[in-house]
């Protein structure tokens, strides 16, 4: 049972490619690996712990004001993450700019709270939240890997494509500038969905 909660969000019910949640930030922070990894970690932590906390108090929240209660819990966690990032990883937090704040409205978090944490015990909710964050992070890292490698020729800031290959140094290679632009992220996600669905037939839409 517990295993299923953890495995499903990573592939069959991946929040980005199957449930279409949390796309907003997934695309904007993936031009480089470093911000993508930091973002993935932050979202995983916030999703896990917000599910856990909401699940702890699920029986005392009045139904009518549950959205506000959820937002307050999530916003508190995001403020903590933001302050920690500003203190220990200032450069990355500048690169992520508004997208740290936008974790609050990341649909994965609200989606998991509404769909899972409100009806389940704290520990499974924590696992479910973490697993969804992990599934989200997986797509983020995959996107950032492709975009940074082909867009800037580096991975995590380290030069991968040999400098002597570049046409500026008399070689034949040129970075694909399109990869860094916003539309490339959308098209890459489209392609990932295409590949995933050709392997798992039950996901194909009519």
């Amino acid at each position, binding site marked *: 049972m517990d295993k299923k909660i953890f495995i499903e969000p990573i592939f069959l019910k991946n929040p980005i490619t199957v449930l*279409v949640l949390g796309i*907003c930030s997934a695309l904007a922070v993936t031009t480089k690996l470093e911000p993508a990894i930091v973002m993935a970690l932050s979202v995983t932590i916030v999703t896990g712990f917000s599910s856990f906390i909401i699940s702890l108090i699920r029986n005392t929240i009045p139904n009518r004001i549950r959205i506000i209660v959820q937002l307050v819990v999530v916003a508190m966690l995001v403020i903590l993450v933001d302050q920690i990032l500003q203190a220990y990883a200032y450069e990355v937090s500048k690169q992520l700019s508004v997208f740290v704040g936008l974790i609050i*409205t990341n649909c994965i978090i609200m989606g998991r709270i509404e769909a899972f944490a409100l009806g389940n015990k704290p520990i499974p909710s924590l696992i479910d939240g973490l697993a969804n964050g992990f599934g989200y992070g997986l797509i983020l890292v995959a996107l950032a890997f492709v975009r940074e490698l082909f867009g800037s020729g580096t991975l995590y800031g380290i030069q991968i494509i040999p400098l002597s290959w570049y046409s500026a140094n008399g070689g034949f290679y040129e970075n694909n500038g399109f990869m860094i632009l916003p539309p490339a*992220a959308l*098209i890459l996600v*489209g392609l990932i969905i295409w590949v995933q669905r050709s392997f798992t037939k039950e996901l194909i839409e009519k």
Partner: protein
Amino acid sequence: MQDLVNLFVKSIFVENMVFAYFLGMCSFLAVSKSVKTATGLGVAVIFVLVVTLPVNYLIYKYVLTAGALAWLDPSFADLDLNFLSFIIFIAVVASITQLVEMIVEKFSPSLYNSLGIFLPLIAVNCAILGGSLFMQERGYDTLAQATTYALGSGVGWALAIVSLAAIREKLKYSNIPAPLRGLGITFIVVGLMGIAFMSFMGIKL
């Protein structure tokens, strides 16, 4: 006046919420199946943005920025409440959407019937909170600027969702490879629209 017009045009086309920053993507993809509902959501987003952004601007300027509380008491001059901005902004957005919903329901039932189902959705639309955060980060320093930016980015978002809905209505009749149907092709179409919108980038305003 001229820079307000510039800001307006810039926030619609050059810095489009959807194509340049991917804000409000979740509802953008989920509610763009028909032009009619897309228009409804688009109008609702413009409306809520234009109401929330000036309110957040005033709160930010007179309560949250460093030294903003000096008007209350000189000893507050070095108080910086910036770290509270996320929670305050989201609380303002959530309560104003609730308020707007109740007002619209009371005074214009016909508008409520067409917008009603979208209003609760908007509280968690990243475009709304994103608008406030961008306002804070870019430091728009007059109320007029903040309002113009809200209107411009709202119109840009509405324009994007209505045009995507129009394309998706046509797409129903095309023969798309089965695994790409639905979500996959939508992403690629949005990417292509993004490329088209990038042609505005060269414009210096």
